[in-house]
């Protein structure tokens, strides 16, 4: 077990490779209760969030989910988040913001002065009274369909719904952090164990496995997804991180928008890339990336052995001028040079996708 943002989390349940492969080939179950869950309610909740997030919130319809960033005035990333527009069983519209566990307290603090400007908006941190479970993999839809009465196959990607699982209130969203199809469920903390057991039992024939933090990291790395503290931090802007798609500057202003407009109009200095390494040694965070003349051109931000490709892969930032797919580079792994090739992201893309 490892301590992570105040939660005791298993790095692995049965083994990283076995758990990784179960998610890629069948279905994996993730306890992601550590993620922060913040609920915003009130007539101007959408305007408050629109002021704080890089994507538009004011036009969101009930059932929509958007990946977005929260930036500081300089355009540095405070956190990457999922914002959902939901309707409670009593027909009240609210917004749910899922933030990184390690950033939850920082974001709650960051929100305070802005909340004061929107006195009609109430924020509740529901992280501790709820739990969050991800069901990911090609069998995830089939498995969940056996436990939910609403049709799931027709539920679009990045859609969410307030429903129930065997009488237990559940928010289900077609989202994930693995590169696979699947869902993320939010349930009451008191119901979490029962929901987890229901899923484990229902998925037994499909070979469902519980997935720890280790495989969660290898899965998201193959899917080219950034992890806060690695590919994202307050000194990195979304454009450089390759997340320009999550920044909407058109006819709107939000915290950081001025800086981001300026950054977008300039040419990039460094940019996020993928690397495929020769040999079996993985380049970890902080390893130097060099060109063929051994000049430093960048740094590795995440790296691991990839169970899917059976070779080490990494993400990092390099000088934008040399960031060409297929370029040969060297990585310094604790004093020895290993050859690598820049690779397009994501490394892994699933074959079929949700509607």
């Amino acid at each position, binding site marked *: 077990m490892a301590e992570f943002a105040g939660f005791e989390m298993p*790095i692995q349940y049965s083994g*990283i490779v076995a758990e990784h492969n179960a998610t890629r080939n069948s279905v994996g179950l993730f306890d992601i209760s550590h993620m922060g869950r913040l609920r915003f309610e009130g007539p101007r909740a959408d305007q408050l969030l629109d002021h704080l997030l890089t994507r538009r919130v004011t036009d969101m319809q009930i059932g929509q989910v958007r990946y977005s960033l929260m930036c500081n005035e300089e355009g540095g990333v405070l956190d990457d988040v999922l914002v959902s527009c939901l309707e409670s069983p009593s027909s009240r519209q609210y917004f749910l913001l899922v933030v990184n566990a390690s950033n939850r307290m920082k974001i709650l603090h960051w929100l305070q002065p802005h909340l004061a400007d929107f006195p009609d908006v109430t924020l509740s941190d529901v992280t501790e009274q709820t739990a969050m479970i991800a069901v990911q993999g090609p069998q995830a839809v089939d498995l969940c369909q056996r436990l939910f009465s609403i049709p799931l196959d027709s539920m679009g990607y990045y859609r969410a719904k307030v429903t129930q699982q065997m009488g237990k209130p559940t928010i289900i969203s077609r989202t994930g952090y693995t590169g696979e199809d699947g869902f993320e469920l939010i349930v009451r903390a008191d119901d979490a164990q029962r929901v987890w057991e229901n899923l484990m039992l229902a998925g037994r024939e499909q070979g469902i496995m519980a997935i720890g933090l280790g495989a969660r990291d290898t899965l998201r790395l193959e899917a080219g997804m950034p992890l806060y503290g690695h590919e994202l931090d307050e000194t990195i802007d979304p454009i450089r991180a390759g997340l320009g798609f999550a920044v909407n500057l058109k006819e709107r202003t939000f915290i950081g928008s001025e800086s981001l407009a300026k950054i977008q109009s300039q040419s990039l200095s460094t940019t996020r890339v993928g690397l495929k390494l020769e*040999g079996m*040694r*993985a380049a*970890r965070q902080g390893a130097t990336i060099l060109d063929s003349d051994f000049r430093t051109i960048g740094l590795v931000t995440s790296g*691991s*052995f990839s169970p899917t490709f059976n070779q080490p892969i990494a993400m990092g930032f390099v000088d934008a001028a040399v960031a060409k797919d297929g370029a040969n580079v060297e990585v310094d792994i*604790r004093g020895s040079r290993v050859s690598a090739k820049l690779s397009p992201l994501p490394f892994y893309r699933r074959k079929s996708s949700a509607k």
Partner: protein
Amino acid sequence: MTIDPKKLRYASTHEWVDIGSDGVGTIGISAFAVKELTDLVFMALPKIGQKVSASQEFGEVESVKAVSPLYSPVSGEVVAVHEELVDQLETLNEDPYTQGWIMKVKLSDPSEVSKLLDFAAYTAQCGE
């Protein structure tokens, strides 16, 4: 010859040593360490003739999870290296003691062995 883990001495960093009558120690890593690392993908070995010192790094083992240095439990000169192990790291899962030895060291200071943990003390440290 089978190595009995109960008769070995251990470093707190999870390496074991089996001292032979010829003053040569056979060194490997414990089943506990292998279980904790899991999914081993790479091991960097020392060279024959290399001098190693107690508690100093002599190589590294890498799993999908992390890279971990290997520390020598004793000081001396490397007289044999298990080269084949690198290509069959799964051996360590099956038999980390007899088949999974990593190197043999001619001890320069046999008194160091008394500072190592016995099986009971080592397993107590691992909380098993």
